């Protein structure tokens, strides 16, 4: 009797724990879908805040903060965002929270993007600071995960955006995008893990032809 009581209690805990994780998975799936569907800056801000709440509640998951940073980064690419440095501060705050839990290649990918956004404010003077920061982030990311397709995609973007005279251009970017796409095809991301980038890489590769 005692034993069965205990096992019932144990079962109860299991159920509660599983329910909690189910709840997490459900809200993450919902938010990731909302992130994919977001159209306006307001949508992106809402979804970033939503991810942040999940992160604050969970405390041990880096993914919610990662996605919050990612949503904020999508805002940063918008040409109508005036103060990229203020936006970058928000991204970096999310990244810092995520990195306190786990440091990984996906976070370096976002770090690369935010540094690139800051560099673009004044490329002539900032390429030596933010530009170096961006390439260091890529390098650090590749050390942790040499087969991360998103890092190759971002490297391709950087080459694509750099003038031919400066050592960039379509010809230089093309093999990098090809490598990125091959890695995207081979990749098997865990549930809820980042899987964006393949379409962007394919679109860019088409522009390289």
């Amino acid at each position, binding site marked *: 009797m005692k034993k069965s009581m205990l096992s019932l209690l144990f079962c109860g805990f299991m159920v509660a724990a599983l329910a909690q994780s189910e709840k997490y998975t459900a809200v993450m799936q919902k938010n990731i879908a909302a992130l994919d569907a977001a159209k306006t800056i307001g949508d992106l801000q809402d979804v970033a805040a939503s991810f942040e709440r999940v992160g604050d509640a969970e405390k041990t998951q880096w993914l919610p903060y990662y996605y919050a940073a990612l949503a904020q980064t999508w805002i940063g690419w918008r040409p109508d965002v*005036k103060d990229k440095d203020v936006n970058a501060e928000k991204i970096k705050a999310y990244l810092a929270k995520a990195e306190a839990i786990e440091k990984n290649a996906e976070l370096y990918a976002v770090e690369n993007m935010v540094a690139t956004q800051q560099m673009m404010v004044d490329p002539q003077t900032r390429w030596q*600071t933010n530009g170096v920061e961006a390439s260091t982030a890529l390098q650090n990311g590749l050390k942790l995960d040499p087969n991360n397709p998103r890092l190759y995609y971002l490297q391709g973007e950087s080459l694509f955006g750099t003038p031919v*005279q400066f050592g960039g251009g379509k010809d230089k970017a093309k093999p990098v995008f090809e490598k990125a796409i091959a890695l995207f095809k081979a990749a098997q991301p865990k549930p809820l893990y980042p899987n964006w980038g393949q379409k962007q890489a394919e679109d860019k590769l088409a522009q390289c032809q």
Partner: protein
Amino acid sequence: MQKLVITINLILITLGSMAQVLISGKIKDNRGRPVAGASIAIKNTYDGGTSDSTGRYHFKTTEKGAHLLTVSSIGFKPIEAAIVIASDTAGVDMVLKEEPNELKAVTITAGSFAAGDSKRGAVMSSLDIATTAGSNADITAALKTLPGAQQVGEQEGLFVRGGAGYEAKQYIDGTLVNNPYNTSVPDIAQRGRFSPFLFKGTVFSTGGYSALYGQALSSVLLLESIDLPEKSEVDATISPLFVGLGTQQLASNKKSSWGVNYGYTNVGLYFKAIKQTPDYFKMPQFHSGDANFRIKTKRGGMIKYYATFAHSTLGLRRPDIDSGYLKNAFDLKNNNWYNNLSWKEYLGKGWKMNLGLGYSTNKDNILLQVQDAGNQPKNFDNSVYWMRGKNLVLVNRQDLAQVKEVFEKRLAGISSVRFGAEYQHAYNTSLVNDTLHKLVDNYTAGFAETDIYITNGLAAKLGVRAEYSSTIQKAAIAPRLSLAYKTGKDAQVSVAYGIFYQKPENTQLFYTTDLGFTRATHYVINYQKISNDRIFRVEAYYKKYDDLVKTIPASYYYSNYNNSGNGYAKGIELFWRDKKSIKDFDYWVSYSYLDTKRNYLNFTESLTPNYAATHTASLVMKRFFTKIKTGFNLTYSYATGRPYYNFMVNGGNKYYIADQGKTKDYNSLNFSMEYVPSAGKTNAKSFIVWFASISNILGYNAVYGYNYSYNGMIKQPITPTANRFYFVGCFISWGVDRSQDAINNNL
């Protein structure tokens, strides 16, 4: 089990959706304005929402009972409030308090121009100093394109808002630089000793500067040296005038670095090709070396040491104005050694300290000689007293040892207080023929300053400085005050007030130490609107001078001095920089209006000094063509004519104006270009910059003033030594940036 979980889950979800309640309300700031984009959350749950542009929010939750509601938004202090969730609740309104934030807060800009790559509100970057046409990488020359500085070409120095060159001082990492320019040569402006590439930030204060600095009536130039370099590299410079070689070595843990540089300048070849007015019997030659080390400390602080050594010689001859057939020779040998050690450290609990130590020594051996047609020395007896003074042997030496310590404590928010003290021991000697003049000064100062941010939109800086000079045995208290108020997005108004003291010059103190501090009072008001690509500034000021040094002639050779001088300066200045309107094109315009008069030195009455032009303007243009990797820069500078005077002494030992006038307007169009074949290549093994410049392309004949013969009968214009200046050079650096290796290896 699986089934059970799903069932329970289903029940939970069903229960949950049945029990959802709606919470809504409004978020405002402490001034009642709606806060958009604030994040509202029930603590430790996923539920929450974001406020819209009117500050309203609403969200659904399945939670019940007592919870904490958290509200946060960038720029505000996050708050928490206890709520009990039972049924749909509207009107859960919250008020957020603004959090002082360095990115959003106003900065005091009255009387100061920041240049640098990290500084917010910087009007120039370090690169701009090198790529401003006409500057030829001389910091002072580049700053002359900003409002407030005069286009003075016959002497070195920054002549700011009616102030003389010696009334502007330079500081490196907080400590005074005693000899910032190469030794003066009559009627030829000298370059600064320091390369702009040594500094990551520059603040050019044209008035109302901080209590941390003193002994400058008009302006301070604050130079902040770079921290650790990005990478190890070897640099070389080759040009017909100059060769240089140096290296920077960054330790593999990126915690320390060291570097050495050596440069040799010889303008002999250049002067043979481009005719110069004076006859150079010794071609100007400069040997210059520098060494540095930088160490990052455990607590994130920084120790930096920087030293330069310079040795130079030159000799030139000009026709003698009094005789018409004789010549005046000027022969100079200079040795300069400058050392600066600074230590910036975080002491914990919001405390920071800045320690600066400096030692410099400068020695000039100058020979002034009257020579005949065969370049042989010519001596005179007492009857030709006006010629005797032109045969001189001078040995001048200036030593300065100093220490400065500043403590800073962070107060609530971003407010802070800093205080400290400095001590300077100056040893100056001047040997004129056989007469030795000696002056030892112990200068001590204590200062305190606080930055108070009342809100992000209103800030004040209050400071006071107490100074004592042992030579003149005088103490002074100098209050400083400035305020900044945000008037709109990107726009602000700031005001500054301060009293500034300066010791009389050594040349005066050699004769008498019975003098007091000279004094200037500044009032500055500034409006600035600044965005990423555009800067607009307008500034008005009034300065009052008191206790300026007056010269009282005692005989032809000898004068006395007292503090009976006075004067004023007032003006208005405009600055506009725009990188946006025309694609890839960057330009700035500056304009200064100056009205100043002084009665000082040998002036007979209140007069506009000979270094002050009423209107000064500059237009600086830059464009970099990515396709050809070449940048072109043009600078046009204009100034109205400056007054000139010939003061002579009458029989009663009183000055009178024997002649006066105004020079013609000054115009100068300068061009420079840089070709950067490896621009932007992040994996380049070497980085090359080709640089070429022409100063005064239109060949305008500038007249800076006039020299007079002793009897006032003959006057000769002071002109540049050549009409145009040409420069071509190549800068190469070899450095290995490994940031791309990881990617290339994986391809």
